[in-house]
């Protein structure tokens, strides 16, 4: 009875979450003429919307921008946060609490409040509509997120292992390479995925701080899609673009989930 309840509950939640996605998938596969037919399953399948978005110059450029900017922002945030989190967990220094508190308060600050000033600032400094112009503001929320998750992960690493490896004959570098890195990797990958998703999905900064194909990312580009005439909504193209834009996220999670083995450190210490 209880199992049945949980199964039904799970199905309802999954259905609720996936229905809009399925609807968008269905829309993206319908030919233009059938878009307004109110049926869930398309009568004829067509890839014309996918062809349309990829022949247009706007979408491939946006996809490239999205990938590049999100990957760079992730790489920068995670590598900087690794150093910060390591210091926070392993070293004693003045102002340790303030770094964590500061990171949290920056993350809590509403981004919409800085958009206006940032817009003017970027115009004068020439960062407007460039990759760097998006990566920098992305760091304001990806870095705190990464520092917090990584320090939580690092705190769980049994650091006695580092000392054990040194006594076992490892140099400081070998101890890091053979013992600490394999244990820290799952945490780093988890953090990277989280950060990447945040950067990839951002619409606010992307729409305000870009104006051309130079740096406009997919979420912003979709908003600028136009129909073939002024009387037509680009529903099909938007649906197709939305499907395409979720694919990298799905791939990311599938590739890395195997490396996020929880409980990897279980059994290292104590009995």
């Amino acid at each position, binding site marked *: 009875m209880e199992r049945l309840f949980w199964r039904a509950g799970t199905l309802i939640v999954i259905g609720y979450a996936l229905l809009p996605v399925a609807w968008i998938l269905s829309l993206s596969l319908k030919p233009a003429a059938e878009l307004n037919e109110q049926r869930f399953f398309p009568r004829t399948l067509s890839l014309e919307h996918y062809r349309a978005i990829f022949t247009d110059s706007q979408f491939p450029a946006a996809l490239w921008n999205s990938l590049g900017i999100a990957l760079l922002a992730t790489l920068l945030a995670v590598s900087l946060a690794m150093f910060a989190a390591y210091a926070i967990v392993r070293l004693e220094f003045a102002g340790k609490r303030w770094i964590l508190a500061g990171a949290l308060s920056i993350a809590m600050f509403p981004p919409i409040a800085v958009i206006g000033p940032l817009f003017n600032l970027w115009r004068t400094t020439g960062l407007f509509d460039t990759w760097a112009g998006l990566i920098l503001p992305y760091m304001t929320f990806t870095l705190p997120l990464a520092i917090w998750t990584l320090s939580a992960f690092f705190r769980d690493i*049994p650091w*006695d*292992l580092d*000392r*054990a*490896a*040194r*006594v*076992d*004959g*490892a*140099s400081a570098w*070998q101890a890091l390479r*053979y*013992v600490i890195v*394999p*244990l820290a990797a799952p945490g780093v990958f988890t953090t990277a995925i989280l950060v990447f998703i945040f950067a990839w999905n951002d619409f606010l900064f992307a729409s305000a701080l870009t104006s051309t194909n130079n740096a406009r990312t997919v979420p912003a580009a979709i908003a600028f899609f136009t129909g073939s005439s002024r009387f037509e909504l680009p529903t099909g193209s938007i649906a197709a673009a939305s499907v395409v834009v979720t694919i990298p996220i799905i791939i990311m999670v599938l590739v890395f989930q195997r490396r996020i083995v929880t*409980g*990897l*450190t*279980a*059994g*290292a*210490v*104590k*009995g």
Partner: protein
Amino acid sequence: MAEIRINRLSKRFADGTLAVSNADFTIHDGEFFILVGPSGCGKSTLLNMLVGLEDVSEGEIRLDGRIINAVDPKDRNMAMVFQSYALYPHMSVRENLAFPLKLAKLPRAEIARRVNEAAGILELDGLLERKPRALSGGQRQRVAMGRAIVRHPAVFLLDEPLSNLDARLRTQMRSEIARIQKRLGTTTVYVTHDQTEALTLGDRVAIMREGAIQQIGTPRDLYRQPRNLFVAGFIGSPAMNFLPATLDGDRLRLPMVELKPPADARLARSGKPMSLIAGIRPEHFTFARAGDMPQTSSANFRAHIEAVEWSGAELYAHFNVGRLSADMVRSLDHELGLDLPKGAGSRTIARLDPDTPVAAGDTLGLSLDAGRLHLFDAETGANLALTDAK
């Protein structure tokens, strides 16, 4: 083959605390040497300095005559077993055992041979492909030992290796460690807070307190001739009983009896009475049947028994003898950290034959072996019989 010479070694942490002060002793080749003391006494810090995980503030450590103060831990050829075992969780037991050998760049066949040899000694044969998380506490402990012995190191260092095991396993592993050490004949330094482990395992034992070595000697020496109150109270279970004593001329007054002071006690026999602390171990009381003749060096008295603990092989009778003076409470507090309430009676324990007919509430005739009495200075805690003999 390794002799460790520790020469006026001190460790001062950045915050100014002196964790180890002026340790000076030699650990002989092949010896099982124990560092024992209450938590925070600096024994682990001393061990970490030996292995190189902690810098030396002052003094020097010599391994076979060579100063190794600045040698990197990886080059000291010492193996350590950590209290937490510190097994590498992402490696199987085999990989854990092979890790130090791989780092030493041994040929693959030699690594396999040594891993199998260590696994044989520690009975780990069936577990080699398991990950540490699939092992029981005792098995993890064996793997940690195995990782230390595969290297054939010059010195074994063990940091409270048994404190995470349950009582039964602890006794079993204790004898196993002793067996392995005897078999390999490797110089071993073993840190523990458990005086039983220290007495049963050690060839020699060093007792530490607040960073300072109190006494070094064989377990027998420490038990029979404790240099001061701290050592006397730390070694032995149940602990030595401490009683207020007054030396007045040729008489030594205890709360329950009056004796002639032991001949070897070098006491200042001035005219005025002198306050001392007398120590007597529980086993140096015996049951005295009414009418028995007192032995030459014994003193009989009657005690009101408050509690009785019977454990099959032995019987512990608890009784109170008089009140402790404020001075003595302060002195015992300081020396032993006993935290006695003010004006406490001195709770005394006698270890008697388990067949002794006694129950709580009885009044029992007891006899005290005066030859086994220790006398300590109430101010300094020094054993008065030994002050000159040191």
